[in-house]
């Protein structure tokens, strides 16, 4: 038995995990909403993980944005740039 050793640079994208925020809407009448967050070292893996983790509805539209791309306005100085949901 081999203990899992997670290489943070490689698998998380750096010393700290890289997060992608997930946005989706169910139908055209619904606003695009922030539905959650996934961690991934690159966009391809983030895309798959977002699709699999947030599959509680059949989404009409879904997209992801790297957390690092967020510019906070009301939450400036807060520990979390954007709330998980």
């Amino acid at each position, binding site marked *: 038995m081999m203990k*899992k050793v*997670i290489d943070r640079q*490689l698998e998380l994208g750096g010393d700290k995990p890289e997060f992608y925020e997930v946005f989706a809407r169910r139908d055209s009448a619904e606003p695009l909403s922030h539905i959650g967050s996934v961690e991934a070292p690159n*966009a391809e893996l983030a895309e*798959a993980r977002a699709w*699999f983790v947030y*599959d509680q509805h059949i989404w009409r539209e879904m997209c992801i944005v790297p957390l690092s791309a967020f510019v906070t306005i009301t939450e400036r100085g807060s520990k979390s740039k954007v709330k998980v949901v």
Partner: protein
Amino acid sequence: MAIINSIEDLSEPDRALRDELYCIADAKLVLAGWYMMVLQNGRSIADFTSICAMMQGQYGHARALYQHLGRFGVTLDEVEWTRGAKDIRSPKLLDRPPQSWSDFIATIFMAEQAVSTQLSAYRTSLADRTLARLADKILKESRFHLSYSVGWIKALRKDPASTVDEDARRRLVDTLDWWGEPDQPDAVFSSGYRDTSDSDLRDRFLSAVCATFDVPDGIAVPAKSWQPSIRRNGRPGIPENLFEKIRFKNRELAMP
């Protein structure tokens, strides 16, 4: 289309189609078993979620294909219960267990890519519109399976010591076993069930792989004993110990 109860009643193209769909469905069945067996090796919580989802995806596709095979007399009872290891027609690629996370990722990349490539040739089928719609639906749903493996390959490659390219090369040879020799008789294509020949699909698969891995020139598989009905060389069936792990159990407790 009439329901056929005996393989002998089928025309040659129908028999070839039945065999090929069985091979594709079994590839998905065993691939789902791979996801199941590797689940606990996941390297993040999101991997656990993703692997569960891909497992369900593959089982769901396999089930839909088996149901479609019902028109050729195939029953779920046969699919889930009366078959043994030697009756499973999955690609040779999936016989050998993954040797590491990197080998697992390389293998699912090859398997997902191969099966999706083959199904892509059914999307336009005029001879079987239901199958065409099913193939299209499966392909759309498989897109995220490919993103998952490609994302992981990219992450693993950042490590100069990564073996993922080597693993992929080894698995590629096993994957090509699924297509046998180029230019052999291809009843499913000539009858119009598929819009592309096996030889061209093999090339289509190789070009898709090229986008992610270097494919050595002239890569080929000796196809001495390749049989179209099982899409592999050598003896039919999968290893007994793999079958034992992935077979269904507790039949009396199956839900209706």
